[in-house]
């Protein structure tokens, strides 16, 4: 699904990633751990193609296609989706309107009856109905922001999702709910909810994901296949995500520094 080869990325003229390689196969969920400032978000932003993240070396392959130089919206249209950690408030655009655009693959066009029904169902599933007619991200709580992001992703129906610290800003009791929502997006840990049929949910299992976590809390709720530790712009460790997390929890990231040498 996604292959990153020896990626070097500069931000404001400074090299942040010094040659990162990883591969996320179809239907797998990979988790990227590491301390603040290690370059996790930079990797995600560069994969998605945001301005300000300049790839100086290496390449990004998505389903076999080199997307390193593709504009952001083209990557989105090919099936890459991202949930933002701190999304901006977009004034004058309602969440409902944006959701319609997500469902129409980025095209602005009148909504069909079918699309309108999907909007309602998604809002119901992600518990976003109360703010569907508010401006995008305006006055939302931490948990609401995350749910809104996941709802937009569901509408986009991406082949692969990038999640940037999904648990940040969410209080502990809501992390479980959030983990459930992410699992639902990825078609894992399936539970009937009376809204979306299980068969449709199972289809989502084909999705891949690359998830950033600083604290690792989300791992307690998320079914994941592989973990990485990133330190100072390099991947220093990979393996079973829960096993890695246990070591990190016990000894902290400072032990990982030693692997850099």
């Amino acid at each position, binding site marked *: 699904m996604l292959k990153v080869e020896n990626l070097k990325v500069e931000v404001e003229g400074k090299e942040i990633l010094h040659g990162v390689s990883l591969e996320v196969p179809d239907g797998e969920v990979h988790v990227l751990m590491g301390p603040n400032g290690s370059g996790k978000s930079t990797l995600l932003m560069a994969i998605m193609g*945001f301005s300000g993240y300049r790839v100086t070396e290496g390449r990004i392959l998505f389903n076999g296609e080199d997307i390193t130089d593709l504009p952001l*919206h083209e990557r989105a249209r090919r099936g890459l989706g991202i949930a933002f950690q701190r*999304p901006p408030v977009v004034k004058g655009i309602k969440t409902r309107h944006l959701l319609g655009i997500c469902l129409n693959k980025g095209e602005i066009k009148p909504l069909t009856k079918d699309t309108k029904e999907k909007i309602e169902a998604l809002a119901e599933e992600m518990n976003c109905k109360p703010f569907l007619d508010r401006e995008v991200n305006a006055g939302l709580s931490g948990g609401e922001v995350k749910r809104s992001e996941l709802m937009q992703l569901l509408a986009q129906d991406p082949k692969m999702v990038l999640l940037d610290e999904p648990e940040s800003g969410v209080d502990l009791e809501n992390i479980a709910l959030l983990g459930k929502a992410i699992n639902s997006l990825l078609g894992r840990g399936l539970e009937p909810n009376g809204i979306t049929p299980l068969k449709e949910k199972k289809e989502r299992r084909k999705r891949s994901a690359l998830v950033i976590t600083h604290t690792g809390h989300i791992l307690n709720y998320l079914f994941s296949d592989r973990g990485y530790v990133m330190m100072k712009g390099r991947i220093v460790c990979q393996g079973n995500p829960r096993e890695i997390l246990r070591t990190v929890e016990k000894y902290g990231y400072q032990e990982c520094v030693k692997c850099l040498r």
Partner: protein
Amino acid sequence: MSSVTDQKDKLLMVGIDTEEKERSATFIQEEDRVVSCGVKQEGVELLPVKKALEKGYGEYLWGALEKDPQYEGFSNGYFIRSEPGAKPVFPVQACLYIAKEGSVQHVHNIVVADENSELHVITGCTSGTKRGTHIGVSEFYVKKGALLHFTMIHAWGDEIETYPKTAVVVEEGGTFISDYICMHPGKAIKMYPTVYLKGAGATARFQSVLVAVPGASMDIGSRVYLSGENTRAEIISRAVSVGGEIIARGHLIGEVPGVKAHLECRGLLLDPKGRIHAIPELEGKAIDLEMTHEAAVGKIDREEVEYLMARGMTEDDAVSSIVRGFLNVEIMGLPEPLKRELDEIISKSNEDAL
């Protein structure tokens, strides 16, 4: 020269429906000539202003504005009045049209929303020529408990100069709402309509959408005197420059204790050659009043654009959506052709926007 009656498309641009489907009355004046003046619904009175003065409505001439000899020689204009308690479903539409090259149109308009009535007026000013001058004096009276919703759209030819002068008097419990849209200011436009909230509990709300294309220059403001007890006012203006110059003014004067007013001027520069000058003014003349303002001039936030692009929108669509959202045109109920043109202007300027 093109006569107003062949200008269906132009009229639609300024909200004038020539088929008069959802309108309660229609007034069209070309140069000095009243082309159309007819009422379809009860409760509304519509006359050329000169006829109205003959009929005994003289008290309204220079009743809101101080008499100004400079503006005496008007040729005509509209007189619109809603009868006490009347609530016509559809708006009254009025169009002032300049057809002849280089001509001067001088009008004096009077609108009266009589006690407890509700009146919506849509006025569109446009031209079939490039050069000309429009001098428009308007006096509005909102009587006790009445509501006047005044929508004005300016779409002038490139060399038209416009100097309107407007005053509004609002009595006890009355409400004045102004929606103003200007995308074609012509060569120069300067206006500063003033509202006098005289009666207790009177309210005024201005909402203006200003778009300046290269070469355009507009100096547009709104002023409200809050002199009645518990009066309220809100002035909101949204200015977008795609190369032209906009001065967006606002002036609130609180004259008695307990009044509340807010002023908001926001500007978005989409072209480095453009200029937006926001001048919000607050003037308090009593203790215990609440007046606030908010002004901001800036460019489009790259982060917002990319957020939308990450959802699959092209850069053009993302910028246009943000600008449309900024201008808040959905709320104003912009005529469809004008909306389309606005989209074109925005997307043309997109390359310079970021």
